[in-house]
């Protein structure tokens, strides 16, 4: 790919995205109410580590605490959601114990830190969900922390100040409740006492980072949640009998959002114990404990469901939870361009001129042909029995197959026909249970029953000692022989299977297009007279061979974007990756340097920069694909320790 970066020189774009920036107006209002000299202090880039409490109810004002580094001079709060606002009331110095990163590593050190005292306001009409909170300092905008806006039926409770690390001191909680607490020091456990009735279903969640929070959000600590019955024992009347422990199988290697479900055996008093899995603690170890007895879906489940309904990133090319709807082909064509469909007719190798790009930036729309749009996939349902290739349903491409691996060992088979040279894409979605609990394995068999294509990508891993394998939500393949083939879907194990193991498989002809567009950062604090690097990586899907034009919308005055290069370390070649292109998109990274002039106006609030990519095929510029948004601030030249701070990304 030849990434084409436009030089915008601060020119206002006709379709600049001010949506998120408009939220900043609220912040601006706060700023005006509390004028601060944003030039007074210049420091390192701010980093926030924890927020306490981790959430609050609508129509409430919350005293909150943020712990972090380089927060000196923090002057306001930035939120990505309307309805959540805040102000900084004080910032003071403190110390934190910094543990080594490795989960099993030992070692720690005390480090200088800051504690910011905030007032957060949650407007009355704010719907429940996750807000991302950042602090603005003279050093720029911080990374994000999650703040959970509670539903009206979820009363917020603060952890008591006194100790409640033994059953006899347990904090009494009336259910339902959302408790905000801290594991204030290593080894601390927090006990909460609840009353529950026979056969009631308890759902408790301990959250330090919500399950669907973006990876850029500051990581929470590993949680551990247990339910006890204070039965006593022959040895001690104070002995607890453990009934349940949070189910780590839903939370992964670092369980920052644990869920505990338990059917209460009898009416009585029970104890919940919240702590950190690693036995570490500190003032930044804040958590939210949600306790309900209704058997309603947990927040975990609701967030997962929301994610699967497309409530997350703008475009998911390769994620098992993306939606594969009948308009998928239209969406894909919207990310592509075919010669003859654009407004400019040129020879394939003719150079693209800046003026031509500019012309299209303002008015290019999807170049999808009406014919292609009409090719909506047929929706089919899995009909048992279809475990073996004999006598199974035949599908016409394109098709979406809906089904489930209803019992362990269940295999669903379908036949399809292709012509010689057909390039076909197989996409898999798991609408309910997703990997690693349900791992759909796709296999294509030839007429002899031999599997020659699947969705397991195998490559030599570390030290070349073994193969690392992953299942992929998408596989592409070009058939060298036409004819009838069998598609089989099952769980990769032979033990998993129930009605929740649902799948949707889209089988279609390949559409060369631009896939996911990623940036290496979600915030940039550019000092006057210096530059910061923004890497934009675009996926080239299904043989897309065109160029990608990348523009940045919303640059503040005095900041310019110029193409750059990045020297990457030579990692050598991997000797045996197999047909990588079958499973993974080709990806190209464009490096853009964002330079702030020495006299660039300082920004008091972040500007939202939108990365826009456009396919360019045969010199024709395709429709704009708005993707990642990056917060940008122009800050005073840094002089931390008399040295220019190094890049932190």
């Amino acid at each position: 790919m030849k990434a084409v970066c436009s030089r915008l020189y601060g020119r206002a774009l006709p379709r600049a995205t001010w949506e998120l920036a408009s939220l900043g107006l609220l912040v601006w209002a706060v700023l005006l109410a509390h004028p601060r000299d944003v030039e007074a202090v210049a420091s390192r880039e701010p980093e926030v580590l924890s927020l306490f409490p981790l959430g609050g109810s609508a129509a409430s004002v919350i005293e909150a605490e943020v712990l972090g580094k380089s927060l000196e001079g923090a002057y306001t709060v930035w939120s990505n959601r309307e309805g959540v606002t805040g102000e900084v009331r004080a910032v003071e110095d403190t110390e934190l114990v910094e543990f080594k990163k490795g989960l099993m590593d030992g070692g720690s050190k005390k480090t200088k830190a800051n504690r910011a005292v905030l007032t957060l306001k949650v407007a009355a009409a704010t719907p429940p969900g996750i807000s991302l909170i950042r602090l603005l300092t003279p050093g720029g905008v911080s990374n994000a922390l999650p703040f959970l806006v509670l539903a009206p039926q979820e009363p917020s409770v603060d952890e008591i100040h006194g100790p409640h690390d033994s059953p006899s001191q347990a904090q009494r909680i009336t259910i339902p409740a959302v408790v905000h607490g801290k594991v204030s020091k290593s080894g601390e456990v927090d006990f909460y006492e609840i009353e529950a009735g026979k056969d009631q279903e308890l759902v408790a969640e301990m959250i330090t980072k919500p399950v669907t929070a973006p990876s850029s959000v500051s990581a929470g600590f590993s949680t551990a949640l247990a339910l006890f019955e204070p039965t006593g024992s022959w040895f001690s009347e104070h002995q607890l009998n453990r009934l349940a422990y949070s189910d780590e199988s839903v939370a992964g290697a670092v369980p920052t959002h644990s869920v505990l479900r338990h059917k209460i055996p009898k009416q009585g008093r029970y104890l919940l114990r919240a702590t950190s899995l690693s036995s570490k603690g500190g003032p930044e170890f804040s958590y939210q404990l949600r306790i309900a007895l209704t058997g309603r879906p947990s927040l975990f489940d609701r967030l997962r469901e929301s994610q699967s309904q497309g409530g997350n990133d703008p475009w998911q090319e390769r994620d098992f939870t993306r939606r594969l709807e009948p308009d998928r082909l239209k969406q894909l064509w919207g990310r592509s361009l075919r010669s003859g469909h654009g407004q400019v007719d040129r020879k394939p190798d003719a150079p693209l001129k800046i003026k031509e790009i500019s012309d299209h930036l303002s008015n290019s729309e999807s170049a999808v042909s009406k014919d292609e749009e009409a090719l909506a996939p047929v929706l089919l349902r899995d009909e048992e029995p279809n475990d073996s290739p004999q006598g199974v349903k035949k599908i016409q491409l394109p098709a979406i197959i809906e089904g489930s691996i209803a019992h362990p060992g269940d295999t669903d088979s379908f036949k399809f026909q292709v012509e010689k040279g057909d390039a076909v894409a197989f996409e898999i979605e798991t609408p309910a249970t997703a990997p690693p609990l349900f791992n759909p394995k796709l296999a294509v068999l030839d007429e002899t029953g031999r599997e020659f294509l699947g969705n397991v990508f195998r490559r030599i891993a570390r030290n070349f000692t073994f193969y690392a394998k992953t299942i992929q939500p998408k596989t592409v393949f070009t058939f060298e022989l036409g004819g009838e083939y069998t598609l089989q879907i099952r769980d990769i194990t032979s033990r998993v299977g129930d009605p929740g193991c649902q799948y949707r498989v889209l089988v279609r002809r390949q559409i060369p297009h631009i896939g996911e567009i990623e940036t290496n950062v979600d915030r940039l604090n550019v000092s006057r007279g210096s530059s910061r690097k923004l890497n934009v990586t675009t996926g080239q899907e299904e043989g897309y061979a065109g160029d990608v034009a990348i523009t940045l919308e919303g640059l503040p005055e005095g900041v310019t974007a110029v193409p750059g290069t990045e020297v990457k370390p030579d990692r050598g070649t991997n000797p045996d990756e197999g047909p990588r292109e079958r499973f993974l998109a080709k990806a190209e990274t464009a490096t853009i340097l964002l330079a702030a002039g020495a006299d660039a106006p300082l920004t008091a609030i972040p500007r939202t920069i939108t990365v826009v990519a456009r396919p360019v095929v045969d010199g024709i510029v395709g429709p704009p694909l708005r993707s990642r948004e990056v917060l940008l601030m122009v800050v005073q030249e840094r002089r931390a320790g008399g040295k220019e701070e190094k890049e932190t990304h």
Partner: protein
Amino acid sequence: MPYRARTTAFGLSLAVMVLLGFRAVCYAAPGKASTPSTSQVQAPAPVSRQEAAAKLRAGSGSAVSPKLEGLRLLPENATLWGAKASQRFVVMGSYSDGVERDVTSIARLSLSREGAARISGNAKVVAVADGQVTLTASVGGRSASTSIRVSGSEEQRPFSFARDLGGIFTKRGCNNSDCHGSVKGKGGLKLSANALYPRDDYKWIVEGGTYQVLSADPGEKIPRINLKEPDKSVLLAKPTMELAHGGGQRFNKDSADYTTILDWVKNGAPYGKEDTQGAVRVVGLDVMPQEVVLDRSGKQQLLVTAQLSNGRREDVTEAVLYTSNNPEVVDVNEDGLVSAVKTGETSVMIRAAGHAISTGFGVIEKPVSNYPVWRARNFIDEQVFAKLKKFNIIPSEDSGDAEFLRRVCLDLAGTLPPPKRAKEFIDSRDPQKRDKLIEALLGSPEFIDFWTFRFADLFRVSFEQGSPAFTKMYWEWMRNNIASNKPYDQVARERVGGQGYNGPTRHWYGGSDLRRPQDMMAEEVRVFLGRRLDCAQCHNHPYETWSQNQFWGLTAFFGRLTHIGDLGGAGPAVIFDDPAGHGENGGGAKVLHPRTKQEVPPSFLDGKVLAETARVDLRQRLAEWMTSPQNPYFAQAAVNRIWGYFFGRGIVNPVDDFRLTNPPTHPQLLHLLAKDFREHGHDLRRLMRLIVQSKTYQLSGVPNESNRDDRINYSHALPRALEAEVLLDALSHVTEIPETFEDDSGARMPAASRAVDIVFFDTFPSQFLDIYGRPNRLMVPERKGEANIAQALHLLAGPTYTEKISKEGGRVDRLAKAGLTNREIIEDLYVAALSRLPTAEELGFLTKRVSQRASRREALEDLVWSLVTSREFAYNH
């Protein structure tokens, strides 16, 4: 207390140690008079066990010579098949002292008629012609008879290399594991150990060549026989020392063995019929008599019979190799005559081509004429006491309440009883109190914690699972198994056949990679079947019947085990079996034999190859086979392991080393325990209840004269070193100062956590736990409980002891400030540490010494130190 202070207080410490040291030797715990248990009430003994033991000590157990009361002939109703077939007989005499003796040497043998058979020397009857005769033995006016049938007396038995030459090689020790039966053989000749692989032996002898571990290439081939000049064959010249032979002379030229080999070479060195061609082969061995008791001058002739594949039997007494497992107890000659050497117990191994068997021997001083009689609580007691009686060992008295209480609390819950509970229990007159206590302990949360710890040890819950979350997943699975009392066969199936993303599948992690298939297999077999196959990875097992083919055949069940995702802890990984061949290490799903480089099909330990049509979900098939009711290994291994926890040794010991050369001390007990376990749903708690309810378990640790040297018959409780974690918890319990588990980053387990609660044992370093034998769990742990110099130093000056004892807020501090008398404090400390009250002697001595010391606090600290460093404290007994 600082080390200096401890040395100044040494006078008191030493005195207390002397007292406790004495107790540690005998492990008596009289305390208050015990309430008789139910079994004791039901089982009045005509003569108490102490009295009987005293009689034995005084030599009055057998005042007059025993009288012969009966005779029997072994074997009964023999059949002699084939020309020149023969059978040795043994005459057993039953005596009035309860001992059965071999009286063959003084018996007169006669046949009912001549013609069908004749009697030769050594009580051997030789076939002459088809027919039936009766053999009668007479001794001292008593006689016994048995019938003998002779058939096929005209038929020559067909030659078989495996039986005839394999038998010679075995009998003469040629194929011993320290000779030509070693891994690569000796002197250029390789023979399979115990003639397990006759076809291979034939090849090495006839064709020559040497065995290579990693290659099937035999190298230079030099035959060991000479077909042109048979008597020049190396195979004959070496064992007769015509050529220098490192193994010395094995037979002479006049022997039948020499003739057999020479005739074989002269006949062109045939192999004979293959098994598949209907060759008659040996399928098993029987030995008579079983479990023999000898007095100090006793002798016993063994009879060994081969079971043939055609259903017939053949006397092979003179064709097998006998070895005493302990020549200091019994000696055995090459004809199978066993002679007592000194008192003790051992077994005699018998090897024939491809087979081995053993029989037990006990050598006693003198029989007890009035052996105590009492009723067993359950079948465990029936089996244990039957053997004790046979071997003339008198069991110890029943344990006192205090002794039992401490033992059962530590065994079931890993926790010392609280002083208040201990006093209640000892004072209680409820005849059911022991059973009630057992139920309370089996249902306690402490039981779940403790047995989770023990199985986390056995199942190796460690950092190898990749991340703390995954380690915890595995540990939680184990904990839930214990809490729910999941059937143990289900536990095994879930682990061996585990797939997906769940607790048991984390077991397969080996850090950042999966463990090797052969290592996985060997561990599963060791843990669940109690067999150690590791040797067979590179060669046929030198002592056992496990072959390299069997090893790799079993390994083949793990060949498809693979994963998707990251094993390094960064993300979730899913374990599954991939039939398409995405095997580990790039090797595909096929498991190759390291020597032949040929694919090895999945085959069970019994040699049965898994049918191709059944090769789906291989590990599940293996798990089903392992836990099948038809598979005796699983239940036996499980009960033996659990038994080992309660008695300090397994019925087969070590608990995971079942092999022919390591026979069980109580085979029938092992069989019955396994049967009961199987028939009751592999219920671990039920098994434990059965064990701790038995009188055998509840015997005192105080030995008597007859059982003082007994270590294997459960005649008295043997002291067992507390596991490191249990010892540390006990120390915290006595001192009332909980241990702080903290790593160097400041991570700390919650206050008052017990050592047995540690999940991430790699994370929390502990010098104490390391010194006292906490294993690293990189392999199946073996806690030997052996003392070492580091422990001795730690006892004297280790911070764990000194700091806990003297710390403010601890038990000593509390008691000293409570206004109690010295006597009250001493009693409290004794009950806390030893679960018993001090004896009058101890109390008198200690009260006086404490009151004499200038510093009462120091004296009490010294007393606690003496208690917790005593063997009585550090052992369960």
